[in-house]
């Protein structure tokens, strides 16, 4: 069973994604800010991370850079899920190397298909 870490400060997004991903058989871990996102990425060793960009305690870009600093973090697929529409920021994030960049509101079938593709052996 694959484990997915969701890093998002919106409790409604966490609730929805935890519910839907659990239904699909994934193990789900959550973090509500940048600091806890970085800690959880190291502690939980997830198979995939869903990462918001506008996050308290550091922001998503900082979180992404920190996760990518560790050997396990370099290999973990990261799906950005953000309500931020900022072309410059998107370019910066994609330059760091993320596997997918999706915009909110979340289109769950698209997110689910993206995750399945990224977790294919």
């Amino acid at each position: 069973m694959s484990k997915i870490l969701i890093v998002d400060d919106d409790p409604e997004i966490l609730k929805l994604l935890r519910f839907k991903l659990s239904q699909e058989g994934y193990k789900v871990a959550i973090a509500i800010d940048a600091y806890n996102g970085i800690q959880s990425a190291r502690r939980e060793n997830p198979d995939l991370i869903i990462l918001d960009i506008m996050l308290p305690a550091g922001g998503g870009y900082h979180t992404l850079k920190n996760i990518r600093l560790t050997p396990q973090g370099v290999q973990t697929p990261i799906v950005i899920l953000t309500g931020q529409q900022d072309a410059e920021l998107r370019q910066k994030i994609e330059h760091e190397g993320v596997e997918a960049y999706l915009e909110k509101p979340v289109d769950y079938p698209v997110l689910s298909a993206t995750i399945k593709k990224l977790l294919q052996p």
Partner: protein
Amino acid sequence: MADDERKSRNGEIIVVIEEDLRELIPGYLENRRKDMAEIVAALDRGDFETIRSLSHMMKGSGGGYGFDEITEIGRACEDAAKRSQAQEVRDQVARLTVYLDHVVVVYEP
């Protein structure tokens, strides 16, 4: 996400949502009423950063649950908050009030 909003003759706004989200929906809508109260309180303080943050979350979550109108209200309210436009924020709060008072959820498998 299933989403099919239409107005019925008696002013109800019918939203069709997938059955498996049934247990999450009442809490989600109730929390938007709490958001409205927080936005009004923030307006009284001139705290547009709180309004922007709450609206941003509404924009991000509404459509995911099947409520595209909540996403649209969130987007308009966030935009107004960024420009510190109190009257526009009030207009969006009024729009959300009407929506929450009239929305009727129909669950479909």
